[in-house]
């Protein structure tokens, strides 16, 4: 009991501390590291996407952020496990992350009921899942020496980014260095920087070179990629929580030659999948998915990671997007597959195997959706690759009722079966999303359907 009280006190004080941090931080940052504003820009950066291609200790990490503020105001600070050289950092393509996103996104599947009076012939069609559009941004800063016990280990430019790799002896020095170099860092950063310094991690600081950015002709920032070798298979999320405004969403795509990946220090569970839901959801799939995710997230106590997709990249069924070609996979950081094939892309939709050079060229993609906050995710995320080959997808089924004339007996039977079926779909939808069932029924127009009349069982016997 006493222990419990102490714990409660710890929790309460942490919660209070967070409140204080939130209340005084003008800017909103997120991600593994934090974005550092150099002006009082209002930032909003709540969903990040990270691609991790990993085989053994070798890792290629791609970070993309959907920051929509003014790019010149930003800088990014991310703890990295090793010192990075210029050759280890490059610019990624947002297009590739979007491709990964649409390939692995939760999807709607449509089925059309056949004419109940005719022979059964069903076909299905795949509707694209809710895809996210992502954009990114960044900054400008002066670099100065000084007695901060901060070492600039490397300084180079990659694309529109000016990058510094810093190592520090203590967090005071690092904090002062960042402040003196016009980085506006969130309050409480010092305490969080400390553990990373002690773990001998380095700091990857990126800002934007506007002139270079203009050359690219793009307003948004391109993803940053880094390749390194480290036994640490983790993502630092604590820094990003510092000035976060509530929950943050992180999509992690883990590409592995081995199999599914999972979070090692939090529970990983599958998103609800495979349910039949009302057809009207087709027009509001985004809302549906958001509500459903939120409902599951609340139900699981807001402390689990969700598996949204797990599949061998060589096939998909149904495909919500064409599987990534070898060239695209290489661009996503998959270093263990051979040089790009000349005959890539285009072709059939479903189960289109990609000829990989050998078994070693396998790529298994895991999409984890983690909604985290300071309260329930105190520890940085660590991942684990397993040899689990099980495929999984977030998939929701729409069954369109047959609209034509149904005058035969089977047709009448079919008509009577519709109402209970729709009712069931409405209940499923209400359960998944927490939406009001009366609204759902109204939208589905259930009332217009014939009420199934309970016929006495003997009526059909002596016909």
């Amino acid at each position: 009991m006493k222990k419990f009280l102490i714990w409660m006190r710890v929790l309460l004080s942490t919660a209070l501390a967070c409140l204080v941090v939130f209340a005084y931080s003008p800017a909103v940052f997120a991600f593994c590291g934090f974005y550092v504003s150099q002006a009082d820009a209002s930032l909003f950066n709540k969903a990040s996407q990270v691609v991790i291609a990993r085989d053994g200790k070798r890792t290629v990490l791609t970070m993309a952020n959907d920051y929509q503020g003014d790019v010149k105001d930003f800088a990014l600070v991310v703890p990295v496990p090793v010192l990075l050289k210029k050759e280890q950092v490059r610019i990624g393509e947002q297009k590739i992350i979007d491709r990964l996103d649409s390939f692995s996104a939760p999807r709607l599947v449509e089925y059309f009921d056949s004419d109940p009076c005719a022979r059964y012939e069903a076909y299905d069609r795949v509707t694209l899942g809710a895809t996210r559009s992502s954009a990114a941004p960044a900054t400008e800063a002066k670099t100065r020496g000084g007695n901060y016990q901060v070492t600039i280990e490397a300084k180079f430019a990659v694309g529109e980014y000016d990058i510094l790799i810093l190592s520090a002896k203590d967090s005071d020095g690092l904090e002062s260095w960042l402040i003196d170099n016009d980085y506006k860092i969130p309050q409480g950063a010092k305490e969080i920087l400390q553990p990373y310094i002690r773990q001998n991690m380095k700091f990857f600081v990126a800002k934007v070179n506007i002139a270079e950015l203009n050359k690219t002709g793009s307003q948004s920032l391109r993803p940053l990629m880094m390749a390194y070798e480290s036994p640490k298979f983790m993502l630092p999320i604590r820094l990003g929580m510092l000035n976060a405004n509530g929950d943050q969403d992180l999509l992690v795509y883990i590409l592995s030659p081995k199999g599914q990946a999972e979070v090692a220090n939090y529970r990983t569970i599958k998103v609800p999948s495979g349910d039949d839901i009302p057809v009207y959801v087709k027009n509001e799939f985004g809302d549906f998915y958001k509500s459903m995710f939120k409902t599951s997230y609340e139900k699981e106590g807001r402390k689990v990671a969700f598996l949204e997709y797990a599949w061998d990249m060589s096939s998909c069924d149904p495909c919500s997007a064409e599987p990534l070609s070898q060239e695209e996979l290489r661009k996503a950081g998959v270093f263990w597959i051979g040089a790009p094939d000349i005959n890539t892309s285009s072709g059939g939709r479903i189960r289109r195997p990609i000829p990989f050079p050998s078994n070693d060229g396998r790529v298994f993609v895991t999409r984890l959706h983690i909604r985290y906050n300071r309260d329930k995710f105190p520890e940085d995320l660590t991942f684990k690759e397993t040899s689990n080959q099980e495929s999984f997808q977030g998939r929701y089924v729409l069954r369109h009722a047959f609209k034509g004339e149904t005058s035969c007996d089977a047709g009448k039977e079919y008509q009577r079966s519709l109402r209970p079926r729709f009712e069931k779909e409405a209940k499923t939808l209400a359960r998944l999303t927490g939406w009001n069932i009366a609204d759902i029924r109204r939208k589905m127009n259930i009332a217009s359907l014939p009420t199934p009349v309970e016929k006495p069982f003997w009526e059909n016997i002596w016909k």
Partner: protein
Amino acid sequence: MQSLKFPLAMPRSLSKFFAFSTSLFKDARDYQIIFLSVFFLLGVCTRDWSLKPIAIAITFATCWLTQICMVSIFPSASPQKHERWLSLKSATITALGLSLLLRSDSYSAIAVASFLAIASKFIFRTNSKHWFNPANFGIVVVLLLDSFVGNSHAWVSNGQWGEDSLYALVFLGLGGIVLKKVGRWDTSFMFLASYAILEGLRNLWLGWTWDVLAHRLTSGSLLLFALFMITDPRSIPNAKAARLIWALAIAVLAFIFRNVFFNADAMFYALFLISPLTVLCDRIWNAPRFQWLPKRYSALPSN
């Protein structure tokens, strides 16, 4: 239970039943089986596990079969027939442990792990003490095969039990009863305490907030390991002092594996490496060996 006074007019059949039940719970393994089953059911009902009924069936069947075969191949000195059958309880505990911890998408990997677990008891033994905890041996060998030889399709889902403090309490409570029954609670206590201190020092040095430590220590997998795996009386030292040192060594090694080599399955490897030292410990420190059943129920130990 012995102090229970039955009514004088109790039917004979009922008194037999009571006699049976008292003898049933004399064996600490019964408690272990019951509590592990409770956790197992709890996990199946409340956690989204990718448990496959066939995999569980294979685990149990392989464990039991191997046990029966091994008992026949390596007959113990005990001529008593019931002893043989009682040893199936140990196999059941191993099977439960494997089902709780090991995950696989290949049935052959599960069968191999189960076979190795039980076989290890008969192959690696000195003075009828096992060098390895059977379930731990099975798990570690298939994990090693998985990472070094090729995909044997087996892994441990460390996060599967979550970090619920409620679970922690249930674990501690129920585990405590079993350990008290087995009389080896000191091992778990020593392991948990030293591991907690090491993690606590690390936390302090790094400067993390204390909820990071709490999150690390309330991991269900850690508690399951501490309360049910390192307490197997047949594979831990007999003398108390030896047990304490032994548990400390496991905690230190697990801590190093986890925080220096970043291995998520640290504790399993730590136990695997330290476990054979039991034989050495028993040679240095003399103490009476653990008996599953009190003297009057069993003349000689079972497997």
